[in-house]
């Protein structure tokens, strides 16, 4: 069994003639906990979508679990929490129904959801602490609660790799703590590999094992301590960036102001 979960080699992608990814190479190994940092428009979300097979790169190689990305069929092995994942619209659907969507994808076209699927759905609800609201309509929930629902949907499939695109957006401080604690547990206890797109420097400094700084190409790859020192972030964002003294703060992009 290969140890490589994601392998990108010299991936290039352009939209309407504008380069979004230029020769991006990266490796995600089993049990990795990786954060991707970068300014807006750096290609972070696009990179995740390339891994998910939503965008086809114009050049380069994508391998997932050792298989060529174009021929990778076991997509349920990759859990995905999109940006603004909680925007489910206002059509009626209960929390349980939405979370079951993750399991439906795993079950495939012809298999009905069985007892083990329902167990996994309930387990995902429990992990996010939303069992009690399982039968409430999603449209009646707060933004933070909806975000938890989206994360539970990704977990219901029992993924080996979890891709999260600014997934802590909309969570309050307690919710963030639960969220990052859950990611750490999944990573440590179940060996789930995690790729987290974030602007949360506090989380990067305290939680992840590796950081990739992206600005259309990989600007830096290494440990979080190295990433946060010697003005690397200022270089990445093209403006002075102050790493917050306290954890949990966001990247400050404007020079001369601290939050």
């Amino acid at each position, binding site marked *: 069994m290969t140890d490589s979960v994601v392998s990108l080699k010299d991936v290039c992608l352009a939209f309407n003639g504008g380069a979004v990814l230029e020769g991006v190479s990266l490796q995600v190994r089993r049990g990795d906990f990786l954060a991707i940092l970068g300014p807006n428009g750096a290609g972070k979300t696009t990179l995740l979508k390339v891994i998910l097979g*939503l965008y086809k790169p114009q050049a380069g190689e994508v391998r997932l679990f050792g298989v060529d990305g174009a021929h990778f069929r076991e997509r349920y092995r990759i859990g995905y929490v999109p940006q603004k994942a909680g925007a489910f619209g206002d059509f009626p659907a209960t929390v349980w129904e939405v979370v079951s969507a993750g399991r439906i994808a795993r079950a495939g076209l012809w298999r009905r959801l069985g007892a083990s699927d329902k167990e996994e759905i309930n387990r995902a609800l429990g992990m996010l602490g939303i069992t009690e609201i399982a039968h409430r309509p999603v449209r009646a929930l707060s933004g933070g609660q909806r975000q938890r629902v989206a994360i539970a*949907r990704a977990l219901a499939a029992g993924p080996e790799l979890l891709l999260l695109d600014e997934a802590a957006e909309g969570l309050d401080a307690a919710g963030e703590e639960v969220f990052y604690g859950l990611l750490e547990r999944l990573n440590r206890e179940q060996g789930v590999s995690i790729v987290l797109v974030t602007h949360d420097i506090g989380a990067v400094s305290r939680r992840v094992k590796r950081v990739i700084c992206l600005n259309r190409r990989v600007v830096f790859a290494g440990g979080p301590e190295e990433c946060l020192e010697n003005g690397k972030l200022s270089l990445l964002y093209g403006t002075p960036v102050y790493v917050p003294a306290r954890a949990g703060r966001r990247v400050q992009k404007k020079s001369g102001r601290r939050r």
Partner: protein
Amino acid sequence: MDIWGYGFFIRAVAAGVLCGFACPLVGVFLVARRYSFFADALAHIALAGVALGIILNLSPHVITLLVVVGAAFAVEWLRQRRRFHADALLATVMAAGLSLGVILVSKSRGFGADLTGFLFGSLLTISPIDLQMIALLVLVAAGTVFLFYKHLFVIALDEEYARAAGLKVTLVNTAFILVAALTVAVALRAVGVLLTGALVVVPVLIAVRVNRSFRGTVATAVAAGITLVLGGLHVAYVADLPPGPAIVLLGVAVLAVIIIIEEFYKSLRRA
């Protein structure tokens, strides 16, 4: 003689119930995907199919079916590949379809009094063969929706997520577009070009107001569709009204009553 003793009325009721069942079943997924005008756009294009059938001296129903199915796939292709905003695309298609239909109607002979039937439906003139055709189309449409129900739900919730999760979105979407086109073709006989969109959407809007779950919404929308058709036919018979508009207006009236009750309860809670 009692109205139920007339074959034409029994066929009208049977065809109406089939339409009342199929339209909201498809409508739930269209409304959830914010694609409500899809049925309306196809129905407007259908007028061109009807006129084309008359000009070519072929069965208008068969030509309409072919035109609607072809248009459905063309619209979906434009939405997927050319990245049009769905609402703008459907508004354009609707206007183009109606314009083409009117031009073809003006060039064809033999429309005469039938035009009203095509525009507003002609349940009372449905023949036994028509009814068999409608039953077959509804069976295919309902069977496809039940077969792909779970996947249609996931796609309706979030199409990009469905693709990322490895669902066969293109296959399911293709099947659904075909089903939507068949349903529109069926509904044209019941409520006509101008009211088909309403029979697809209004029962769903009623169901959305009173449900918490997706499954409940589907069940309520179908029940509402059938009830509205039966109620509308009854109103049409009692008040001597055209059945298509009676069905749609009854649906809109029910929706209005639900919204008024909701607002009343809201104001009570605020007080």
